[in-house]
């Protein structure tokens, strides 16, 4: 009888130990989130580049207006706008040949050049 009690106690201790180990293994996200905190902080420290406009949702007049606004701003700031103006010239030439795809691509390129100056 005594042996049975000892065997039962040993078994219950063994089972509760296994349960604790199992429970610890099921909770790694807590440890991961603790690790991920410094990573998130370091991402916030990086200066983001200006977000590219959603060209797909803009009309030609809107894109054209944005280009002229940026061109004036950059000219007033004394920046070199030749590359952007050359890109816009390609857009103009394509428009005059009714090559809309090329015209839009060059206009968007001109805008991005000015935005990233």
């Amino acid at each position, binding site marked *: 009888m005594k042996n049975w009690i000892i065997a039962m106690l040993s078994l219950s201790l063994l089972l509760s130990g296994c349960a604790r180990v199992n429970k610890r293994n099921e909770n790694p996200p807590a440890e991961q989130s603790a690790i991920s905190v410094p990573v998130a902080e370091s991402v916030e420290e990086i200066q983001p580049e200006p977000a590219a406009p959603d060209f797909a949702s803009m*009309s*030609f*007049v809107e894109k*054209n*207006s944005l280009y*002229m606004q940026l*061109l*004036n701003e950059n*000219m007033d700031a004394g920046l070199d706008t030749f590359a952007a*103006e*050359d890109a*816009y*010239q390609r857009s*103009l*030439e394509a*428009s*005059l*040949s*009714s*090559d*809309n795809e090329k*015209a839009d691509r060059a206009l968007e390129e001109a805008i991005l050049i000015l935005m990233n100056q």
Partner: protein
Amino acid sequence: MNKKTLILTLAMIFTLVATTAFAPQTAYAQSGGGSGTLKANGDGLAGIRGSGDVSISGSGILWIRDHAGDAVINVSGGRNRREGENGWVRYSGFNGEASVSGSQITVALSGFGIDLEATGTGKFVLRGSGSYTVEKDGITVLNGVWTEEAQVFSIP
């Protein structure tokens, strides 16, 4: 020829005549020759190339190209004049009016409040929002609105 065939033939002739008579005017304009007058106003891009006289006003960027070297150019209100590639001269910060005459010229204004009048022969592109008319011998032969996509039309 039986009655059924006769009716079918007449119907086909009528359809052919009707589609020819009511065809869009652009088809006529794009295949025409001679000299006409284009008047256009709107926002976006207005460009014309050919032979004749062009008067244009508004604000934005003005582009002029003289292919033959015989153009007479008068520009008022151009802030920054720069010579680009392929013989282009551009005026950024343009806010005024310009007149250009020549045998092979291209004039374009990109911006707002564009008012264009051109007499001669050539082709034009209007992109954005606005309206235009083309007259020949005092009769309006073509009219329409500026479109989101660039389309090339001819001055008949």
